[in-house]
């Protein structure tokens, strides 16, 4: 029996129930929405406003990004580091995932555990570990000197190199987890079939396997890239103040100079770039799936 043929009083009752249901659901999501709204959306809107209005209506904060050498350099550094970290993560992560996805399940679980241990370890602890490893008198320099490659200790931290190494360590699991999940779902019989039809295994890999692994690779790589763009802690500690990423530009303008206009325009530009990347990412993989991998 459809609603329209029901007596009028029933229709009204159903409508009322429907509305009270909707009101209940709205009330249930309200506290979480309020938390995100007041503590995140509201300040973001305020920041966007400040970027045009601090201290009076102006576009100076945006033109500064393009004209001030320090700002321009900082964006350039940020992109260089993010590209480098993403590229290295793919070079190291792809073979590792391929290897793990073919291991017998027990060994694969152990391998994944080794990937998850750093993932579960505090960011600060991992950055600290790299400070120990990369310092002038650290084990890596000792090793290089003992085998006689170098005479003087290499400068491995407080510079670009240290920042990239530390960030690569933090970002690698973000590439591995979605990529591994995708590879696990690829039917390996497809490879066998193509080889049995005469394709060389290397050709089979590039024409069959690699395209099938693309969704995971793109999702992981974009995630690494986005996280690198806004990264603060590791570049601050391992860059030793010599590597100024966009995040540090924001922090310095707020904490040292109280320059909300400059900080907010940089923040807005960064947010817009990240928004575009997430929009692209969403076309490959639902955003919540990416984080679900965590």
């Amino acid at each position: 029996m459809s609603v329209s043929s029901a007596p009028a009083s029933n229709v009204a009752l159903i409508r009322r129930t429907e509305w009270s249901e909707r009101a209940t659901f709205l009330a249930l999501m309200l506290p979480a929405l309020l938390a995100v709204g007041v503590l995140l959306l509201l300040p973001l809107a305020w920041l966007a406003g400040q970027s045009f209005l601090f201290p009076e209506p102006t576009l100076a904060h945006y033109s500064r990004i393009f004209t001030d050498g320090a700002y321009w350099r900082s964006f350039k550094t940020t992109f260089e580091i993010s590209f480098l970290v993403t590229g290295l993560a793919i070079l190291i992560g792809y073979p590792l995932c391929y290897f793990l996805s073919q291991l017998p399940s027990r060994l694969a679980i152990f391998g994944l555990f080794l990937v998850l241990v750093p993932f579960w370890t505090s960011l600060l602890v991992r950055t600290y570990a790299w400070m120990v490893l990369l310092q002038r008198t650290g084990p890596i320099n000792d090793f290089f000197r003992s085998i006689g490659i170098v005479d003087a200790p290499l400068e491995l931290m407080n510079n670009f190199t240290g920042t990239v190494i530390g960030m690569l360590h933090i970002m690698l699991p973000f590439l591995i987890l979605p990529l591994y999940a995708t590879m696990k779902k690829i039917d390996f019989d497809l490879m066998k079939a193509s080889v049995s039809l005469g394709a060389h295994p290397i050709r089979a890999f590039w024409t069959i396997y690699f395209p099938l692994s693309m969704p995971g690779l793109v999702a992981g790589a974009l995630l690494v890239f986005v996280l690198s763009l806004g990264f603060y802690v590791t570049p601050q500690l391992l860059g030793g103040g010599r590597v100024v990423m966009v995040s540090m530009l924001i922090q310095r303008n707020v904490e040292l100079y109280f320059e909300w206009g400059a900080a907010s325009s940089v923040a807005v530009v960064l947010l817009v770039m990240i928004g575009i990347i997430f929009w692209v990412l969403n076309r490959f993989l639902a955003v919540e799936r990416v984080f679900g991998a965590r």
Partner: protein
Amino acid sequence: MLTKPVNELQITHRQRIWLYVVSVLALIFLVGPIVIVFPSSFSDSRFLSFPPDNYSLRWYYHYFGSTEWMAATWVSLRVSVAACFLAGVLGLTAAYAITQLSNRFGRWVEVTMLLPLMVPLIITAIGVFFVYSEFGLLRTIPGLMLSHTMLTIPFVIVTARSGLKSFDMNQEKAARSLGASRLRAFVDVTLPQIRGSVIAGMIFAFIYALDEVVVSIFISGGVNSTLTKRMFTALRNEIDPTIAAISSILIVFSLLVVLIGMWLAGGRSAKVDQ
């Protein structure tokens, strides 16, 4: 082990030995730095060295004997526990409502609530800093609890949503048609079956809140500094070996929490399956 190709199309282990070498090196790269923290925490030296020349518990005594480090640890623990439970409740109710609505509005709300994961922490941090300076919540425990709840709601949303998606809502309808209230039906029928995913989300939330650095740097301070803020400040000024001791404790603690959480999440849902 195959050493010679069966035919010209076969790739032998020897031919792809580079794959094994790269993979093992990658795994060492991932785990090595975490492993070296432990021996360096038992160093006797005032300077950071690895491997240490003499072993002692000096830096552990220093950590547990320092009122400042202990206060910071206590602040961090209180904030993370509060964030874990608040995010658990807020995230679960929101995930339930989104699932029930299952329309475009719900989808929009869901994406909004994932924003704390997508916005760079430095931007979130200056935003929260601004709001808190208006409302006088800077350097307060409730302020920290609130901000970390907001930051960790997405984890509970993601896991609870995936739990609810695989749950058959008709069971709840059945309970309600038999006279149970919505709350009763949820608590007695739905919750036991999605408990594992909710606990998983809460564990993520706890660990994330405990490890969070950037927002804490901006909004905590004075007697209400978090452990991460104190560690960050200490690392920025000089490499203090106390950090090695704290790091070792944190690594073990985080892994224990994750393992206990996995056991709780897995154990509970397994019980329901029986």
